[in-house]
């Protein structure tokens, strides 16, 4: 999955003239009193969150792998191994959507959005705007669909599978969510670092 970073380019030489005003406005915001400290705090907060998520991911993955080993111990190696995974073409059960970063927003939009258990969703393609709409469902229907998708994903190992394997699936799901949060947090602190770096460059000028 390719990561795209939308970081404002430094220096005015490479930017088209119509964006010079926007760049100047942003520069004026940055030069306001306390702006640098605010950027430093944002950077440190993002970095701290990233490290916390990293620790959380490590423990979640450790738990997930142990639950998988426990399920193998319970079911036997013949019933739970990689040679049972389905090689037939089928839609992805989980997708990652990359959205554009809103540089003017105080609370930056997430760059990476995880959409879990979407293989059964109705997707209507809008040919004009090239965007996608998703049909609305009631919350109860969501739970049923998610449960069905989870069961379908595990059905490669059989229908009567132990609770340990289902627990392992949930743990790996949590780990995936944490990974996406980490990706967003990383993008955030890289952006904060870039802004801080620009601030320092502007100060030197």
């Amino acid at each position: 999955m390719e990561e795209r970073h939308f970081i404002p380019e430094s220096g005015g030489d490479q930017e088209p003239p119509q964006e010079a005003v926007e760049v100047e406005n942003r520069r004026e915001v940055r030069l306001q009193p306390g702006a640098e400290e605010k950027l430093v705090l944002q950077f440190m907060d993002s970095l701290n969150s990233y490290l916390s998520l990293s620790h959380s991911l490590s423990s979640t993955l450790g738990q997930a792998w142990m639950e998988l080993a426990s399920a193998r111990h319970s079911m036997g190696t013949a019933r739970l191994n990689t040679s049972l995974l389905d090689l037939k073409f089928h839609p992805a059960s989980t997708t990652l959507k990359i959205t554009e970063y809103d540089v003017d927003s105080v609370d930056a939009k997430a760059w990476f959005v995880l959409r879990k258990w979407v293989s059964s969703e109705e997707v209507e393609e809008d040919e004009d705007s090239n965007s996608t709409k998703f049909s609305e469902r009631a919350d109860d229907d969501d739970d049923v669909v998610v449960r069905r998708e989870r069961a379908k994903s595990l059905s490669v190992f059989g229908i009567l599978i132990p609770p340990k394997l289902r627990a392992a699936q949930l743990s790996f799901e949590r780990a995936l969510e944490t990974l996406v949060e980490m990706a967003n947090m990383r993008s955030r602190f890289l952006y904060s670092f870039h802004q801080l770096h620009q601030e320092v460059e502007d100060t030197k000028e």
Partner: protein
Amino acid sequence: MYGFEAMTFNIHGGYLEAIVRGHRAGLLTTADYNNLCQCESLDDIKMHLSATEYGPYLQNEPSPLHTTTIVEKCTLKLVDDYKHMLCQATEPLSTFLEYITYGHMIDNVVLIVTGTLHERDVQELLEKCHPLGMFDSIATLAVAQNMRELYRLVLVDTPLAPYFSECITSEDLDDMNIEIMRNTLYKAYLEDFYRFCEKLGGATAEIMSDLLAFEADRRAVNITINSIGTELTRDDRRKLYSNFGLLYPYGHEELAVCEDIDQVRAVMEKYPPYQSIFAKLSYGESQMLDKAFYEEEVKRLCLAFEQQFHYAVFFAYMRLREQEIRNLMWISECVAQNQKSRVHDSVVFIF
């Protein structure tokens, strides 16, 4: 006639009973498990196992080791012991020994059929099959599209043929059909094995009927718990329970309608032998149920060796070895994942 086996058993079974009791003495002890649980790496485990009967099977394995390698090599030891006993056995012991492997045969059939449904390579699937469950035409399973073809093309010439009468349909194979086929075959196999042991009579019938009844009851509980929240209907669930065992028939009627683990507990606690098992679990929890069942099974299997002149010692030895291999697999996983604090979650000591 029960009680007179001492006069005639040793004529045909004496040598092999001595062999299997010798093999039993080679099972790992608590001291061995304590040493293994303190290993820091899989190479340490290999070093400790080199002093046991698994030594010759692991000595040539190069580093780095993988947990599946340890399990495969230890399984070869079990297979060698079994084949030696089988080639020396006469009837009816040879048939009894063959019955022990039919469960693995069923697992292999389901593995091949499921893997083929998922468009996997047959050679890759054959490598994952249990060696005790192999038969000549097993690779031909990949060409069958439904159960009727499965039976007609391959299984009609195997010992599993009589078990197929209840699941022959022309429906195409899918995950649900395969699961029902697995459990229906295993149910028929257990019932057939039970009848065979009853026909043998004597101490074999007495001890094996207890062990097989426990197996049937454990299967019923696992099927119930694993089918909660699935598409399996109550009637279909009821049909998968064996027609013998302590829970048959009233316990099965109650288990068929259970919707959560606490209802299963309420049913099982009415039966004294299973009260102690469920007493070890907290309410709503099923994680330790497997270990509790394995501990009870090991206790019963060890008791089989307290009597002489019967065939149940062979069954008990095979099952104890399989439990030992499961223990080694769990210890290896905990060491490989650096989670040694979880080692005692699933290790069942035999002695």
